[in-house]
């Protein structure tokens, strides 16, 4: 960096280092607006508010509309009745009818007024003709003085043939009051809604930022290289909890893979260098010291053997890596393990007999499961290989397959040296070799491969003490759904639980 020309340096610096520092305050200032939780809460509030307003408005419209229509109908009917009285009994008949109505008007809500052509009151419960009412047969809503109270009324005027004028109406003070009450109620409701919306937004935001914020900080720490961080879980089984669990599972797997890579590179440094070094030394020594062709040939053959061993290790390593990458799950199919086990038992029985080992095998009629035949074949073969390799001459090797509703277990036991309990968890790591196995041929990858295959099938390999010897148990689930389906199932059950509570 020091050698860079001055002109380039500032550009470089703005490009690389200070950017996050500049960006950070901006992010913080806009956090509230950009927060998904706030947006979510605001949107939720808006939808809620709009539906409330629509509901209230329609309630108000139908209630008030109904009342005002009822008033209008009553005024019309009243007016028509009075005109009928006029037609049969003239003015006196009408006055009589008006008098009766005014008397039988208990709550003073009906309004009547009859004036002569000069505008003088003939009869009625109103002091004077309201100024606003100018046309006949039109419905007016006007403020009036009624019994010395200011009030509101709906009024309709009728012109009579002899020049008199009739006013029929209803006091609508109650309607006006109702309108006011409804309006006030709506304003309060709106205010309360805004308040609740804000509180709701804050609660939702708190919920979100607690759950998602933790995920963010964790993943950020992971991205920076701290693979030990995990998302905090609340074990409620809700969607956030499931997401946290899924992320943790993912991180566990990543950590395992990373560990694997680290282990492998260490192991390559140690376990592959040794045979390569041995082959190299042998060849070099032969080239400089061999005196005849036979000696040379033996050295070369031995070196070739060492290199073949290296190739075998490489192939096993690559195969494990391939399996761990999960690439081979495409070959999964519905299979029956029984013929596979029967064939392998027959295949290895010969090797056991050769060494005087008692070998017996038992299996049920059918071992149906979902899996990859080639992989499982190899896993069982590796376990049998080990058992026969480590059983002493004249020893005993058992193979027993069992199944229950969920899983298939394949037990393979020998009475060899076994693996000390302290080492059993490490035994499935790559290049692990038990003390007792130091002098036997092998790559130290057999059990690692079995473990990888078991994991590919969502199963596992269990190592127990066989008193004496080793009991290796390959546990395989019979039903092997795709992980996504499993997760979907769990999400569904979580939602189901929630709806029951709700």
């Amino acid at each position, binding site marked *: 960096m020091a050698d860079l020309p001055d002109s380039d340096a500032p550009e470089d610096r703005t490009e690389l280092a200070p950017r996050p520092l500049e960006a950070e305050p901006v992010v913080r200032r806009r956090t509230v607006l950009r927060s998904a939780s706030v947006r979510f809460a605001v949107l939720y509030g808006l939808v809620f508010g709009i539906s409330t307003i629509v509901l209230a408005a329609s309630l108000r419209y139908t209630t008030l509309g109904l009342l005002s229509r009822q008033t209008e109908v009553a005024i019309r009917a009243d007016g028509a009745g009075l005109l009928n009285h006029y037609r049969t009994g003239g003015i006196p008949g009408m006055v009589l009818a008006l008098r009766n109505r005014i008397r039988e008007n208990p709550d003073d809500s009906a309004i009547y007024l009859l004036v002569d052509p000069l505008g003088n009151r003939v009869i009625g419960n109103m002091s004077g003709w309201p100024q606003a009412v100018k046309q006949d047969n039109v419905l007016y809503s006007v403020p009036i003085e009624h019994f010395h109270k200011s009030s509101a009324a709906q009024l309709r005027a009728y012109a009579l043939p002899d020049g008199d004028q009739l006013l029929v109406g209803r006091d609508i003070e109650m309607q006006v009051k109702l309108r006011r009450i409804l309006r006030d109620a709506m304003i309060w409701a709106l205010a309360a809604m805004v308040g609740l919306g804000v509180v709701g937004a804050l609660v939702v935001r708190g919920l979100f930022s607690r759950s998602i914020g933790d995920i963010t900080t964790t993943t950020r720490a992971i991205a920076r290289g701290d693979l030990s961080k995990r998302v905090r879980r609340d074990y409620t089984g809700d969607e956030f909890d499931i997401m946290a669990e899924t992320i943790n599972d993912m991180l566990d797997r990543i950590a395992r893979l990373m560990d694997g890579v680290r282990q492998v590179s260490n192991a390559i440094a140690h376990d592959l260098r040794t045979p390569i070094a041995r082959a190299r030394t042998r060849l070099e020594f032969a080239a400089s010291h061999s005196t005849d062709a036979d000696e040379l040939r033996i050295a070369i053959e031995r070196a070739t053997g060492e290199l073949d061993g290296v190739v075998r290790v490489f192939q096993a390593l690559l195969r494990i890596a391939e399996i761990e990458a999960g690439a081979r799950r495409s070959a999964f199919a519905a299979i029956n393990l029984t013929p596979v086990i029967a064939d392998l038992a027959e295949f290895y029985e010969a*090797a056991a007999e050769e060494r005087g080992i008692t070998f017996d095998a038992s299996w049920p009629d059918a071992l149906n499961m979902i899996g990859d035949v080639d992989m499982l074949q190899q896993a069982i073969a590796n376990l049998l290989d080990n058992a026969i390799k480590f059983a002493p001459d004249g020893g005993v090797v058992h193979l027993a397959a069992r199944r229950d509703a969920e899983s298939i277990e394949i037990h393979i036991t020998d009475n060899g040296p076994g693996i000390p309990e302290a080492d059993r968890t490490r035994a499935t790591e790559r290049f692990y070799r038990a003390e007792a196995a130091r002098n036997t041929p092998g790559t130290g990858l*057999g059990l690692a491969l079995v473990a990888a295959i078991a994991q590919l099938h969502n199963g596992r390999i269990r190592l127990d003490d066989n008193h004496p010897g080793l009991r290796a148990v390959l546990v395989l689930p019979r039903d092997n759904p795709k992980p996504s389906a499993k997760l979907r199932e769990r999400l569904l059950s979580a939602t189901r639980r929630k709806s029951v509570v709700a």
Partner: protein
Amino acid sequence: MRILVVEDDKDVAGFVVKGLREAGHTIEHVDNGRDGLFLAASENFDAIILDRMLPGGIDGLRLLETLRAQDNATPVLFLSALGQVDDRVKGLKAGGDDYMTKPFAFAELLARVEALARRGKGEGPTTRLMVGDLEMDLLSRGVKRAGQKIDLQPREFRLLEYLMRHAGQVVTRTMLLEGVWDYHFDPQTNVIDVHVSRLRQKIDKPFESTLLHTVRNAGYMLRVEEP
């Protein structure tokens, strides 16, 4: 036999060509896909050894696909550094007859190529195999040597059948593993040798001459002993 080697790595090619010539075969060698396709399509070979990754715009897979599209059924053995299961499947799907991963043992390559080339001759379905005084009836599943009936387990029968079909050729342990058991892994123990020696007990031990021979550093061969 006439064998085409399409391989761009000079060392590997030189070693393969030399070895095959020493084994008595006639070899054509090209180091790129274009020439390889031209030769394979225009001349007759008993077998082709084909690298997957080749210079010249046409890789091994394309070459083979083009060849198969022209109804050319010459047996092809892939020789590739691409050793993953998927690569192998791809190679066989493209029309390859066998697949070997580098690095390889020459004995294994020779045995497999010879097996392929002979299979390409297409003897048609047979019901009877004969090697010296050893007879196998594929219909009645009976085996006789010098007129004497030999009892074999089903798997021993298949092992012997495979050896008899490849009589006079070297058959490697891997070939037996794949051809007789359909296993594609490498057993750590010497199981194959045990199975072969059991078979030997039945077909050779009671008789004067040996038919089933061990070939050092390579495998086994079933043949009539030279007098």
